[in-house]
C-alpha cells in the first residue's frame, strides 16, 4: 500500500507544481496579491508531498518490499541497512525522484528565506521553479516511475553493484545533485528578471548567495566523486575526463564564472546581461549533462542503464526549459540597460578576464565531450576524445587563470594602476619565483611545473590580500588583529576559496610525480618504492556480510622504522559474481601510500600475490583543496551582507543604472 501512497503523493506534487508554475505568474502579471501569495504555499505543499513520496520509497527499500520493481532490481535482503537507504538513489528512477525532491527543497527554501524579496519577483522565481519541478515529476511518473510493482514478487532482490556499496558514493549523489539543482534558483531569478525586464544591484545581491551555495555543493560533490574513484577503483587515478565527470565540470566552470560576475552586478551594475546568460547557461548545462548521459548518446563508465525512449522525453523537457529560457533571453535581454563603466585594468576588468578564461575552458571541455557523437552524426566516422586531449588543451588554460587570480582581489574597482598592486604583491611574487626555482630542479614536465608555480602564486596572493586588508606589519599587531576581526566574512571567504584552488592544484601537480610498481611477491618478500620498503607479511581470508574477502597485510618501513601497516583486500560478491578491490591508503597529508591486492597465483605449492604499490605525493591536497574552496564559499555565505533577501531593493538603484 505504501508504494501506492508514494505514487499518489508524487502525482499530487506534480499537480501542485503545475499550479505553482501558472498561478503566481498570472498573479505577478496582473499584480494580484492573492494569486502571488499562493506561490510560497504551493511550493511548501509540493515539498511536503515530495518528502512523503520519497519517504515511501525509502520505506519500501528498508522493508525489503521486492514487489516494488525498483527495490527488487537494486536491493537485496542481505544488504546492510545504510546501503538499503542510500541504494534508493543509486539507480535511475530513485535518483530522478531525489532530483525532484531537491528541486522541491529549492522552491521551499525560496519560499521560506525570500520573504523580503519584492512579492512579484518572489512569485515569479517560485513559479519558474515550479514549472521545472512539474516537468521532472511528470518525467518521473511517466517513464521512470520508482513505484512500479512486479508480480509475482521475487523472493530476493538482485542486489546492488558492490562498487556502489561504499559510504563515499552513498552520499555523493545527494551532494552533487544539490549542486546541480541548486543552480535552478539563480536560473529562476534570471528568468524572473527577464520577464520583469529589470536587473540591478539588488538583483545581483539576491542571486549571489544562492549561486554561492549551489557552487559549494557542486564543488564538494565533484571533490567527493573524484575521491571515490581514487580509493574505490583502485588504480590511483582520480579524474578520467569521462563524460559523466565532464558533465559535472562544465556547470562548475560556468557556475564559478557566475559567482564572480554576480559580484560585478551587485557592486557595479555591469555585466548584467552576461550574468543572466550565465545563470541560464549553468542550469542548462547541469540539466543537459546529467540527462544526456542517461539517454545513451554519451556513454560513460559510470552510466546508468540507457534507454533512448527516455531520452526523447528528456530531450523534449530540455528543449522546453532551455529553449524557452534562451528564447526569452533573445527577446528581452536587448532591453536590459547597460551598466557601470570601468577601465580595462580594474577589478571588473579582471573579473571579465576570469569569465572569459573559465568559459573558454568550459567550451573546450564541452566540445571535447560532445565531439564524438556529432562527428558520428555528421561524417559517419567515430573518433575518441579522451584524457590525453583534455590534458593537452583544457588543463593549460588554467595557468593564465591562476596568474590573474593572484591579482584580482587586490584590484580596486573601476580603474586601477597595475604598478602599486604589483608592489604590494612583491613578496608573493618573490615566493612564487622562489618556488619556481626550487621546482624547476625537481619537476621536469612543463605543465605540472607551471601549475605548481601558479598554485603557490594564488595561495601567496590570497594571503597577501588578507595581510593587506589588515595592514599586517604596518600597524601594531594588536591593531591588525582588530582589523582582522572586523574584516567582512565575504572577503575572508573569497581569500580562503582562492587559497583552496591553489591547494587543490598543488595536489594535482604533485600527482604527476607519483610513482607506482606492480610486483608479484611471496609472503615475506620486500619490495622498494620511493625509498620505502614494502613487505607482504601475510594474507588471510575474512568473511563479510554479503561477500568473502582476501585480506593482505603489508608493512611499510622507512629506513627500518615502521611507517604503517596496510590491509588491502579483494572482495568477492557471490550474488553478483563480481570482485572488488579494497584499496588500503595510509596518508600523512603530505603523501599517500596506496596498496592494492591483485591476483593470487598458485603454482604447485608456490603461492604468489600480485601487488600494486603507489606513492602519491600531496594526493590528499586535491580533495582538501576542494573542501577549502567549499568552506570559503560557506564562510562568505555567513556574511551578514550576503544573507538571503536581507537587503531591500534601494529606491535609487535605478539611478545608478542610467549614468
Amino acid at each position, binding site marked *: 500500500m505504501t508504494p501506492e501512497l508514494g505514487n499518489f503523493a508524487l502525482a499530487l506534487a506534480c499537480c501542485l507544481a503545475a499550479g505553482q508554475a501558472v498561478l503566481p505568474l498570472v498573479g505577478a502579471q496582473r499584480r494580484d496579491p492573492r494569486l502571488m501569495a499562493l506561490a510560497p504555499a504551493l511550493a511548501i505543499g509540493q515539498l511536503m508531498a515530495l518528502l512523503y513520496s520519497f519517504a515511501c520509497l525509502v520505506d519500501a527499500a528498508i522493508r525489503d518490499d521486492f514487489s516494488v520493481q525498483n527495490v527488487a532490481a537494486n536491493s537485496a535482503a542481505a544488504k546492510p541497512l545504510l546501503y538499503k537507504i542510500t541504494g534508493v538513489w543509486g539507480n535511475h528512477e530513485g535518483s530522478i525522484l531525489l532530483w525532484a525532491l531537491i528541486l522541491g527543497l529549492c522552491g521551499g527554501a525560496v519560499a521560506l528565506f525570500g520573504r523580503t524579496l519584492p512579492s512579484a519577483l518572489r512569485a515569479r522565481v517560485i513559479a519558474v521553479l515550479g514549472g521545472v519541478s512539474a516537468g521532472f515529476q511528470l518525467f518521473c511518473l511517466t517513464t521512470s516511475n520508482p513505484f512500479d510493482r512486479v508480480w509475482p514478487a521475487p523472493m530476493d532482490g538482485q542486489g546492488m553493484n558492490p562498487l556502489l556499496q561504499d559510504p563515499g558514493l552513498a552520499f555523493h549523489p545527494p551532494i552533487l545533485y544539490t549542486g546541480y539543482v541548486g543552480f535552478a534558483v539563480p536560473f529562476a531569478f534570471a528568468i524572473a528578471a527577464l520577464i520583469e525586464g529589470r536587473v540591478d544591484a539588488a538583483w545581483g545581491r539576491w542571486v549571489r548567495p544562492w549561486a554561492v551555495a549551489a557552487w559549494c555543493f557542486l564543488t564538494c560533490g565533484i571533490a567527493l566523486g573524484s575521491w571515490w574513484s581514487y580509493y574505490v577503483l583502485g588504480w590511483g587515478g582520480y579524474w578520467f575526463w569521462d563524460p559523466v565527470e565532464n558533465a559535472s565540470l562544465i556547470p562548475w566552470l560556468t557556475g564559478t564564472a557566475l559567482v564572480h560576475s554576480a559580484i560585478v552586478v551587485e557592486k557595479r551594475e555591469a555585466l548584467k546581461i552576461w550574468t543572466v546568460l550565465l545563470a541560464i547557461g549553468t542550469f542548462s548545462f547541469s540539466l543537459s549533462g546529467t540527462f544526456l548521459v542517461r539517454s545513451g548518446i554519451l556513454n560513460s563508465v559510470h552510466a546508468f542503464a540507457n534507454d533512448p525512449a527516455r531520452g526523447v522525453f528528456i530531450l523534449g523537457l530540455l528543449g522546453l526549459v532551455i529553449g524557452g529560457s534562451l528564447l526569452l533571453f533573445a527577446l528581452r535581454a536587448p532591453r536590459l540597460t547597460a551598466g557601470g563603466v570601468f577601465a580595462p585594468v580594474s577589478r571588473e576588468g579582471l573579473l571579465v578576464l576570469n569569465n572569459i578564461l573559465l568559459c573558454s575552458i568550459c567550451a573546450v571541455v564541452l566540445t571535447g565531450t560532445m565531439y564524438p557523437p556529432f562527428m558520428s552524426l555528421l561524417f559517419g566516422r567515430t573518433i575518441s576524445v579522451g584524457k590525453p*586531449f583534455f590534458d593537452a588543451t583544457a588543463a593549460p588554460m588554467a595557468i593564465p587563470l591562476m596568474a590573474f587570480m593572484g591579482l584580482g582581489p587586490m584590484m580596486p574597482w573601476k580603474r586601477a594602476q597595475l604598478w602599486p598592486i604589483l608592489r604590494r604583491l612583491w613578496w608573493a611574487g618573490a615566493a612564487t619565483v622562489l618556488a619556481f626555482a626550487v621546482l624547476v630542479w625537481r619537476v621536469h614536465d612543463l605543465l605540472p611545473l607551471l601549475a605548481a608555480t601558479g598554485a603557490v602564486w594564488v595561495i601567496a596572493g590570497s594571503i597577501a590580500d588578507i595581510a593587506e586588508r589588515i595592514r599586517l606589519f604596518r600597524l601594531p599587531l594588536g591593531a591588525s588583529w582588530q582589523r582582522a576581526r572586523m574584516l567582512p566574512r565575504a572577503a575572508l571567504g573569497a581569500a580562503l576559496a582562492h587559497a583552496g584552488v591553489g591547494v587543490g592544484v598543488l595536489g594535482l601537480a604533485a600527482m604527476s610525480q607519483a610513482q607506482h610498481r606492480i610486483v*608479484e611477491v611471496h609472503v615475506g618478500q620486500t619490495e622498494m618504492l620511493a625509498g620505502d620498503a614494502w613487505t607482504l607479511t601475510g594474507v588471510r581470508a575474512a568473511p563479510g556480510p554479503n561477500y568473502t574477502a582476501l585480506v593482505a597485510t603489508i608493512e611499510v618501513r622507512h629506513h627500518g622504522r615502521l611507517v604503517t601497516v596496510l590491509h588491502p583486500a579483494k572482495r568477492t560478491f557471490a550474488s553478483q559474481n*563480481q570482485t572488488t578491490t579494497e584499496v588500503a591508503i595510509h596518508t600523512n597529508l603530505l603523501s599517500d601510500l596506496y596498496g592494492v591486492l591483485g591476483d593470487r597465483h598458485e603454482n604447485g605449492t608456490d603461492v604468489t600475490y600480485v601487488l600494486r604499490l603507489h606513492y602519491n605525493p600531496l594526493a590528499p591536497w586535491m580533495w582538501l583543496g576542494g573542501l577549502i574552496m567549499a568552506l570559503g564559499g560557506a564562510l562568505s555565505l555567513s556574511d551578514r551582507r550576503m544573507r538571503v533577501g536581507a537587503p531591500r531593493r534601494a529606491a535609487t538603484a535605478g539611478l545608478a543604472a542610467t549614468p
Partner: protein
Amino acid sequence: MTAAMRRLAAMLATVLALAVGLAPLAAIAVDDPSEMLSDPAQEARAEAIGAQLRCLVCQNESIEDSSAGLARDLRHVVREHVARGESNRQIMDWMVDRYGNFIRLKPPLTIGTVLLWLMPVLALLVGGVVAFLSFRRARGTGPAPLSDDERARLTDLTRPR
C-alpha cells in the same frame, strides 16, 4: 535488426549489465607483472603509448586502465613492438591501421577535427572580441559616472542644511 532481435539484444544487455554491474571497473588493470617489460625505460614508453590508446570495448578507458581481454592483448602488442625497438609513431600507425582513429584518445588533426583542436583559441578569441566590443560601446555611451568620492561629495553638497 528486427524488433524481436532488438528486444533480445536489449534483454541480453540488461542481463550482462546486471551480471557485471554498472561498470567494468572492479578489477585493477595491469594485474600481472609478467606482462611488463624488464627495461624500466621501455616499460615507461609502453605505458605512455598505452595511455593514448582507447580500450575499444570499454567506454572511456585507455588500454592501460582496462581489464578487458582485448585491452590486455593490445597492451601485449604494444610491449612487443616497443621491445622490437619501433618508434611511437610506428606503433600508433600499426594500431590506427587496424582500428582507425577511434583507437586514439587524442584524435589527430584532420579536416573533421579542426573545430575540436581550434576550440581553445576560438573560445578565447570570441570571448575577447565580445568583451572588447561591449567595452568600447560602454565607453562611448556617455561621461563616466561619478566615483564614490564624487558621489559622497555631491550628497554632502546637496544635503539640505
